[in-house]
């Protein structure tokens, strides 16, 4: 295993842990964003083909879209509470 994959994997594991420990739902999204970066990089490093790159891009952009939707929903429900 390459040293790069080990470093990225370690960052990803640390982020997973911090997502579980963080209480604030908004700040969970920040850690989740960092985790998406890690997963996207790992997809590209493991699937060494142009299709792997496209998969990484599509994964990353759609995960940003869902983060966007979740953050919007948290802001909206704040008024209801």
């Amino acid at each position: 295993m390459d040293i790069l994959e080990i470093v990225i994997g370690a960052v990803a594991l640390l982020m997973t842990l911090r997502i579980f420990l963080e209480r604030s739902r908004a700040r969970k999204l920040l850690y989740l964003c960092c985790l998406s970066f890690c997963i996207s990089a790992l997809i590209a490093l493991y699937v060494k083909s142009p299709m792997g790159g496209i998969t990484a891009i599509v994964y990353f952009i759609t995960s940003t879209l869902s983060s966007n939707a979740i953050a919007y929903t948290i802001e909206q429900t704040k008024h209801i509470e």
Partner: protein
Amino acid sequence: MDEIVVSILKMLVAGAICWINFVIIDTYFGLPEQPGVLGAKMIGEKVKDIGGNLHGGYFMGNIVCSPDASAGTLLASIMNYLMGVEGGLITALLVWIGNRLCADPGYAGTIGALTITAIISLLKPIIEPKYFVAGMVLAIFTIQGLDHKHASLLLGKIAKKMNRGE
């Protein structure tokens, strides 16, 4: 053993280059000035609640809510690693589509993808593109994953210096 030290050094240098690339471009395009979408505003306020800087918080919120120069930098390094320079150009197009999907007018993502493509093609003989992939993960880790309070204070200071937001 020597090889590992060299590759770690390369990764750190690539990380520093990526960090400077995406922070300067994102700040220049006004990410810290105002939240581009409603969700980014909420994240900025939450970061301010823990003692951070509001404009630094907007910066972090905007990164979460739409693919900006940070995403452009990562995805362009990935495609440069897998496909070469053409990959960087394809990424610029896809990131631009992603920006439009997130209702973000920002051209930060596209410009970021293009500048990192230029940097990688210049530095290719010394630092291979795969080090930029890992370097970008480390760069985003220092902003989003390490310490939100101090990261937002630093980003706020940079924004102030570049006349973006207070």
